[in-house]
């Protein structure tokens, strides 16, 4: 019995880690959740106006398909723009701050102060300054992405091997070459860690901001569904938010693996 059990555990482990199909085991808990949801509906723990059946939610994707796609694209484009701006600003700043100690002394306290402010708490101010629409949302996403990108870039620059900088100094390399050929690639793995956090934070922020400061997007759609008593659309919206969060994370990690392929075999990361 014990041996059979151990054998089964080993087979399962091998399946989960090795085969490409094995990666799909990550879906199991989600399927379990849907089953539990269905069970709760059948047991009528909550009335259907609060807890719609899975089938009804699936149906909502057909019924409100156009709405969902339109709002999803609205949210996505805001995040892409906001995080894109955060990348363009945060990464070069981080490379310079990490490289030059005097810039670090100049900015460190300010960065630590501002990064402690949750972007969501800035919604009222953003609305005062930018009104209602895309601008306040993009500004908030920008801020949500800026700090993780900036801090992880700085961290990445700090972890460069000292010898490599000595090689550059001995070769008489100029500062531009050092930044482009050494500092930037050395920091890239960390920058991707920052990007992953930034994309996650940006996605959280966009949904929240859309519930208050914008009249489109998934956040707005969910809030609107609540006010018009369409719980199945609320659920559909939440599922889309979660699924896109998952896919965005996949995308960033895939990108990381391509951009940092030289790292393969150096770390256990990214298998």
């Amino acid at each position, binding site marked *: 019995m014990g041996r059979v059990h151990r054998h089964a555990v080993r087979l399962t482990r091998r399946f989960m880690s090795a085969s490409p199909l094995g990666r799909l085991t990550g879906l199991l808990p989600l399927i379990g959740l849907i089953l539990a949801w269905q069970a709760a509906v059948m047991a009528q723990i909550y009335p259907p106006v609060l807890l719609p059946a899975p089938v009804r939610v699936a149906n909502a994707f057909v019924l409100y398909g156009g709405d969902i796609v339109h709002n999803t694209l609205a949210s996505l484009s805001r995040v892409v723009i906001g995080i894109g701006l955060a990348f363009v600003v945060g990464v070069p700043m981080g490379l310079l701050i990490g490289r030059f100690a005097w810039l670090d002394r100049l900015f460190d306290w300010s960065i630590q102060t501002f990064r402690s402010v949750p972007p969501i708490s800035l919604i009222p101010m953003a609305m005062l300054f930018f009104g209602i629409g895309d601008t306040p949302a993009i500004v908030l996403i920008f801020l949500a992405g800026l700090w993780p990108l900036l801090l992880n870039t700085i961290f990445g620059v700090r972890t460069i*091997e000292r010898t490599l900088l*000595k090689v550059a100094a001995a070769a008489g390399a100029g500062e531009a070459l050092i930044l482009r050929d050494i500092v930037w690639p050395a920091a890239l793995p960390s920058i991707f860690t920052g990007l992953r956090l930034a994309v996650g934070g940006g996605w959280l922020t966009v949904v929240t901001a859309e519930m208050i400061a914008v009249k489109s997007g998934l956040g707005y759609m969910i809030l609107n569904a609540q006010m018009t008593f369409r719980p199945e659309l609320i659920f559909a919206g939440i599922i889309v938010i979660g699924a896109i969060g998952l896919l965005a994370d996949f995308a960033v990690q895939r990108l990381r693996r391509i951009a*940092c392929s030289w790292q393969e075999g150096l770390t256990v990361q990214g298998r």
Partner: protein
Amino acid sequence: MSAAFIECLDVGKIYEGRTGSVEALRGVSLACAEGEFVCLLGLSGCGKSTLLQMIGGLEEPSSGQIVVAGRELSGPSPATAIVFQDHGLFPWMTVAQNVAFNMKARGVGAKQRRERAAEMLALTGLSSFATRYPHELSGGMRQRVGIARALTTKPRALLMDEPFGALDAQTRARLQHELLEIWAAQRTTVLFVTHSIDEAVFLADRILVFTPRPGQLAADVTVDLPRPRTPRSPGFAALAAKLRGLLGTEEGSE
């Protein structure tokens, strides 16, 4: 000034650390003629790397002065190239890109870089690994890449910091032979740091022996053995025994 290519005059180095200062070197004076193969021999921690980095212009001496190619140092001299103890290869660059880096830093054009890198890769037997990344190489191959990179700029002096320290005996012996061949062909000056007595006797025209705490130059020994040398010859063994005495290993300081 004499005809020495590398000259140190009463050079000292004190590192100021958070836990107090460390005197790494005191009163080191040496001269090294062009084309000479000189080994810096000493036990761990006696300041060999420190001295080499100062000659390479990467560290500033706390006292004294260093002259390379007739000019007092202020920063790395274009006449020298360094091979580092831990090879210092860029993990995100291919072997060919690593080898070409020193030339890129000097603004050599892309075409010329490619040609010269290919030449040096051929010289060090790495041609078939040009597109690999450092982590795909063995330790010995990585050291060769470091040497190939240092040679690309035709340095008049090669500063080598225990380049073969982490290798097995066979690989080490093979690379020592190759290095002597390169040295004979290119006629560069070599300053070679090692803590291995056998390696020093095998390679050097002259051995500078250092003693620790603080690092000081204890002896300047000329090696009069004809090349190729073999550790089994009586002259080799006698010299090795003499160096063992100079290093003070029997006192068990390390």
